Structure formats: structure tokens, C-alpha cells
């Protein structure tokens, strides 16, 4: 029996309402019915399911969990089963010939210590090795192998942080991949090694707050690290949360758009890792929408897509798996939805951005929508309210 313990309990809770199969995002493009898979596992055909390799197809988008009345966490079951599938030699097809996954796997070796260079750090930004606030850059420098724009997100996030904070921001020289992709591909041992390395580096830096601008990195640092390593208890915030708090505290505001520039129509793609993969209490949906509301005050237009918040559609690739023509169809659909309501598709996951842009390269009909990361959008707009003024405001 592969699926044991807590996950088994999940399975036994299932009462075959088939809600999950109805909502399944993979089901939109191929036959995929989680409820049947669950039933087959319960009936004892687990081996067949594992052998067939069909669990590699799941997008781990968590749409099914969102709708399931008994909170059967199918994605987590898939994650564990994948680990066993690897042992059994049933391999997935990874996009880009596995390039990015291999990088993470190499990094997970204990005797490999990355030597990050910081030539990309924008001038005027002070960075250091020790300090309070740490910016977890993530894989962006690695993605620059093929995707030239991949560093923009990191550069702009750092610019924002430097603008708001008066102290140097910590960047780790030996920061490794957070391990998200490996975890969801079932390579749990390698994931743990990465996590241990990173946790040690965090400790060494003395940081009390980690900020990330990546949805996957956030979910991994915020949920998966603490669940596996009890001693990891540094505060983690996504840029969205961070900016939301600064707005609420009246520390920053958005600049007015110049009158004669074109009005920007925005819409927002909720990445699964920053929506369905977080406990409801995090309320990221509303936090990001609060930011957009503030933006509307300074002359932007914000429209919601048909599928939004917890319903939002998947970009079609998760942890570099499943990139195929079918997945492209998912992505295409998502971009058409965005095109209907806006001309700027904002997201907070660098990978969603990469996959969307990739589709634009070979599909003309979606080329006229601008895919943009939140940090790129906000970098020019944020204005820091000087602290004195700040006090006056609070006195009033």
C-alpha cells in the first residue's frame, strides 16, 4: 500500500460525489476524473494507477480540493504517489528536457555551494549579508538561461524594498532553490536537502523577515518548510502581503498617473500557489485586490476575469510538468479571458509569467496582451510617505 496515514484517511472520506471530476482543470482538455482514481485506489487497484503513470498528468492545481465537501486533498495524494512512481521507474516528461529540474537536483547535493553574483542589483540599492529583512530571490537568475526577462521581477522587487526600507536588504550568496518543483515531482529527499541548506543560511543571516516575490517560493517557505522542519519559524511574506501592510500602515501610496498617458486596463491572474494552496485565513485574494483598488484611485482600471479568485484557471504547467499542446489550450483559454477584460495581465508568479509569454511567441491572437509581474507594475508607481507626514496622519 503506497498511500498511508493521513492521506489514506482523506481517501476514505471520499463519498464519490464526483464534484472534483466536474471541476478538474485537466478534465477540460483530456479525460481526467480524480473521483474515479480515488475509487480505484480504495478498491485496491493502487498498483495499476501507479503503473499507468496517470498521476503525472494532474496539474496539482488544487481546484478539486476547493470544491470537495470532505476536503480530500488529491494533490497531496498525487505528490506522495509520485515519489513511489519514481522509485518504480515510471518517469514523467519534464519540459525543457528537465533542464530546470536538473539544476535543482544538482543544487540539492550537499557539497555544491552556489556562488551567486549580484551584478544585477540596481544601483542605489544597499544589500548586505546580514540584517533583518531578507529577500529570497529564488530561481530567477537560473531562468535567465532561456528567458531574458526573468530577472526583471527580482530587480524591481529589490528596488521596491530598497525604496521602502531604510536598511540594507539581505541577499544570500549561497541561496539554493527552494525546492518547490522537486517536492511536487515527488523528489522528497532532494527537497529536504535543499530546505535544510536554506534554513541554515537563513539562520546565519540573522534575518527576522523573509520576503519573496514568487508564488511557489512563498507557499514552500511558508507552508512546506515549517511542516517538515519544526525549528523553522522565520516570518515569511509575499510581496503582496508586504505591500498591503505598508499601504494599510500609511507608509506608501501610489503616484498619480500623468494625465496624457493611456489608461492602463489591468486584470489579475491568481496563481494556484498563491490562492488555493494557502489556508483561507491568509486572505491573499482580498489583499491583492485591495492593492488594485488603490491603483484604481490613481487612474488605473481594474477588471476581474470570468474565472477569478479560488476559481481561477490554471496556466497549464506546474513544476515544469505537463507542457504539451493540451496544456497550451488551457493557457490559451486563460489568456483569451484576460484579453476580454484588459490589456495588462498582472500575475505574482514568475513561472506563470514565463509560460504565458511563451505562448505569446507562437500564438498571434494573444500577443496584444501585456503579461506583467506585480513588481514591474508597481515599481514606478510606489511613493514612500515620509515618516513625519506619517505621524501627522496618524494624529488626525
Amino acid at each position: 500500500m503506497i498511500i498511508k496515514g493521513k492521506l489514506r484517511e482523506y481517501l476514505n472520506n471520499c463519498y464519490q460525489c464526483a464534484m472534483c471530476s466536474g471541476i478538474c482543470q485537466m478534465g477540460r482538455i483530456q479525460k481526467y476524473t480524480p473521483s474515479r482514481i480515488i475509487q480505484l485506489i480504495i478498491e485496491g487497484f493502487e498498483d495499476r494507477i501507479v503503473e499507468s503513470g496517470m498521476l503525472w498528468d494532474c496539474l496539482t492545481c488544487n481546484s478539486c480540493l476547493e470544491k470537495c465537501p470532505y476536503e480530500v486533498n488529491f494533490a497531496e495524494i498525487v505528490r506522495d504517489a509520485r515519489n513511489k512512481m519514481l522509485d518504480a521507474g515510471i518517469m514523467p516528461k519534464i519540459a525543457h528536457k528537465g533542464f530546470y529540474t536538473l539544476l535543482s537536483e544538482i543544487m540539492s547535493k550537499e557539497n555544491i555551494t552556489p556562488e551567486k553574483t549580484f551584478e544585477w542589483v540596481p544601483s542605489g540599492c544597499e544589500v548586505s549579508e546580514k540584517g533583518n529583512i531578507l529577500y529570497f530571490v529564488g530561481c530567477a537568475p537560473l531562468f535567465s538561461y532561456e528567458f531574458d526577462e526573468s530577472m526583471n521581477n527580482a530587480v524591481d522587487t529589490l528596488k521596491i524594498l530598497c525604496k521602502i526600507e531604510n536598511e540594507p536588504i539581505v541577499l544570500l550568496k549561497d541561496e539554493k532553490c527552494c525546492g518547490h518543483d522537486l517536492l511536487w515531482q515527488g523528489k522528497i529527499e532532494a527537497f529536504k536537502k535543499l530546505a535544510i541548506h536554506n534554513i541554515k543560511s537563513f539562520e546565519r543571516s540573522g534575518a527576522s523577515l523573509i520576503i519573496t516575490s514568487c508564488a511557489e517560493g512563498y507557499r514552500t517557505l511558508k507552508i512546506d518548510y515549517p511542516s517538515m522542519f519544526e525549528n523553522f519559524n522565520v516570518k515569511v511574506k509575499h510581496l503582496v502581503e508586504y505591500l498591503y501592510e505598508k499601504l494599510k500602515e500609511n507608509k506608501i501610496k501610489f503616484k498619480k498617473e500623468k494625465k496624457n498617458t493611456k489608461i492602463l486596463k489591468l486584470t489579475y491572474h491568481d496563481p494556484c500557489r498563491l490562492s488555493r494552496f494557502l489556508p483561507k485565513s491568509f486572505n491573499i485574494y482580498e489583499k491583492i485586490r485591495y492593492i488594485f483598488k488603490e491603483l484604481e484611485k490613481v487612474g488605473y482600471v481594474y477588471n476581474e476575469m470570468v474565472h477569478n479568485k479560488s476559481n481561477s484557471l490554471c496556466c497549464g504547467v506546474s513544476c515544469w510538468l505537463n507542457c504539451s499542446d493540451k496544456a497550451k489550450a488551457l493557457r490559451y483559454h486563460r489568456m483569451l479571458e484576460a484579453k476580454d477584460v484588459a490589456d495588462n495581465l498582472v500575475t505574482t508568479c514568475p513561472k506563470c509569467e514565463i509560460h504565458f509569454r511563451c505562448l505569446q511567441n507562437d500564438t498571434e491572437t494573444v500577443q496584444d496582451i501585456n503579461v506583467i509581474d506585480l513588481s514591474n507594475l508597481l515599481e514606478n508607481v510606489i511613493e514612500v510617505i515620509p515618516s513625519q507626514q506619517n505621524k501627522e496622519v496618524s494624529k488626525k
Partner: protein
Amino acid sequence: MKIVEKSDKKQVKKDREFKPNIVCFCCNWCSYAGADLAGVSRFQYPASIRIIRVMCSGRVEPAFILKSFKDNVDGVLVTGCHIGDCHYISGNEFTKDRFERLMKILKYLGLKDRFRLEWISASEGKKFAELVTTFTNQIKKLGPLNNI
């Protein structure tokens, strides 16, 4: 206690002579012939390399290099025809561009000295033997990739 044990093990390993494992990709039309010539002309070079013949250096995916490192190969050599000589006209130009990009990533992982891209023609048996010798020595100096 454990730490002492570990370093002990290392000591034992170091005492044994380290024979690096090197993967060498050779393109069929020039460098493989070059390697062949090195053999036929009896130039001595260390038996540390395993040659993988590919039709063109353009066939070598960066993922192959990473896969080798992942599987604890100590060094990787990629060889092809000189620029302008590629049997498929521009395969090696493509290779060059690709590996320049990969080099950036390898640098970041601290693996840049374990990888080398060289052009070797069919008549350069001597050069091939020398390349393998110097590269093997370089890797020997660096030590095994997986020394734990």
C-alpha cells in the same frame, strides 16, 4: 563524533588515487575522428574519459551536461568541428551560443571548471590527447564532485 567519522572517511578516500570520471561528447565528423586518430597514432592520454558519439555537437543538450553532473560525473567535455567546418553548416555555432549561456549557470553553481567546450578537427589527434590530459589533471586538482 559524527563529524570526526566523516572526515576519517574522506581521508581514506583521498589516500586512494582519485581517478576522475569524465564524459566526453564527440561529434561524428571531426572530433570523433580526431579521437580515433589519437588512438591510431598511439598518443598517450589518461583512460579517464568515456566518449559518447553524437552526430553533431549541436545534438548535445545542456540538459545532458546537467544530467551527468547530477549523476556524479566529475567533468564533462564537449567537442565539435571548428567553426565553419560543421558537417551541418552551423550546428557548432548554435552549440557555442548555447554553452555560453549554460556557462553562466554553471558558474553560479560553482561547476564552471568542470566543463569545457573545444573544437577538434579530424587531423588533430595530438590536440585531442593533450586536451584530455590537461582536463583530467584539472579535474584531479578539483577532486571528486561527490566527495562526501
